[in-house]
């Protein structure tokens, strides 16, 4: 993936490394099955 971002997509190495780290966290987020009816935040209302 790093090679793709840096050489094929032409994205800076530093950004690519950060993006890879970010996507590893995104995988965790997307890996939790949630009920269909669950709405997004906000958590509290004033």
């Amino acid at each position, binding site marked *: 993936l790093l090679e793709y971002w840096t050489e094929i997509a032409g994205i800076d190495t*530093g*950004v690519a490394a950060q993006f890879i780290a970010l996507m590893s*966290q*995104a995988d*965790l987020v*997307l890996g939790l099955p*949630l009920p269909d009816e*669950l709405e997004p935040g906000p958590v509290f209302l*004033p």
Partner: protein
Amino acid sequence: MSARSANAAAAGAGAETAINLAARVRRAELSAEAVTSAALARIRAHNPSLNCFTTVLYEQALTDARRLDARIAAGEDPGALAGVPVGVKDLFDVQGVVTRAGSKILTDGAPASSDAVLVRRLRAAGAILLGCQNMDEFAYGFTTENAHYGATRNPHDPQRVAGGSSGGSAAAVAAALVAVSLGSDTNGSIRVPASFCGVFGLKPTFGRLPRTGSFPFVHDLDHVGPFARTATDLALAYDVLQGHDASDPACTVRPIEAASPQLANGVDTMRAGVLDGWFEEGASDEALAAVARVAGTFRLRANVSLPEAKRARAAAFCLTAASGGALHLERLRNRPQDFDPATRDRLLAGTLLPATVVVQAQRLRRWFAAQAAILFEKVDVLLAPCTPDVAPRIGQKTMSLRGIEVPIRPNLGIYTQPISFVGLPVVAVPLWSASGPPIGVQVITPAWKEARALRVAAALERHGIVSAQRIRP
């Protein structure tokens, strides 16, 4: 030197709590001018090495102090923080000062035309604002190793970081340059530096304190709150700062709930839950020992689990990058060379994050908040480390989490991120590790129960478990 000036010199040296200092100024035992002069002298002496302040308001502070003395002489009530030296993170607007938020880019902006609401409230309570404090660029970091303004050094060991992103604010309180500071906390930026600098820090419920006049980072995760050297001072500052402000759409309309009158109530009947799982995996022996010492104060305590905390932390991580990237998009396009490269790369990566992740992270947020609410049906307070370990050394790039080497920058907030993700109030309380440096514990309570967390902090302080003064474990 007059007797009043001599007293003030002692007070400015950090011997006094904010509450005692204000009482003495109100009684005219000390002049606000002399207290301010002494505090400014300490900043002159120590800031060149510690780098807590990026702007010091030498003349303005003395002018404000003289004005306060005149009001006291005229018989006016000078306020609960009369003459108390304070500082604010460099993302709060201070009239006449350019708000830089730790960046080079914002240096080109116009000076703020008015004070942030919380700055105004501090001044209305008689506090004397001494200046603006160093931070990670745009609040995106946990170490305050700022590429433009230098690193803030830890007052307990100058070779170590102060933590971040409110590092200047925590270090200035720890070094007794001020009695109270204001910081902000999106993912742990009050709690991490409080932990490393050995001071008390309050991250209130999301929406409790108005952010009006502060530079944002992630609109639905940004909190603001105070640092202090005692739980009593922290509660006093919090009480002064409370109140609705319609200019912050997230700010609560709930009435002010004063914490100070509740501090003496103790914790005998409280049930404490020690968070296990994610909140102990990777924690150092020092961090776990600190939590155990705090837990030992509670007669009723048990280990409890907050499910999927690792995913909650991941969701906060993703939302931060995406929202931060969106906030700074124009600056990333037009002035990428003026960012700290490490900050810029993280923000740029955030702009590439698929929308699916952002939506799912927000849905996960609501689910996780419900899990926390279920836990609070069984316990009154939750306990967890603030940081996985004591402060790393300046320039250190990686750290060991139970034998696994990980980059420092994104991992110092692994225990704070899941909690701020769902907006719960936390008081960071300072303990002292066997190896020397301080380390903090999070005292977490249900939404809007800041007073309970502060009451726990005060009880721990009375029991000698927590202190901003070095104590042996």
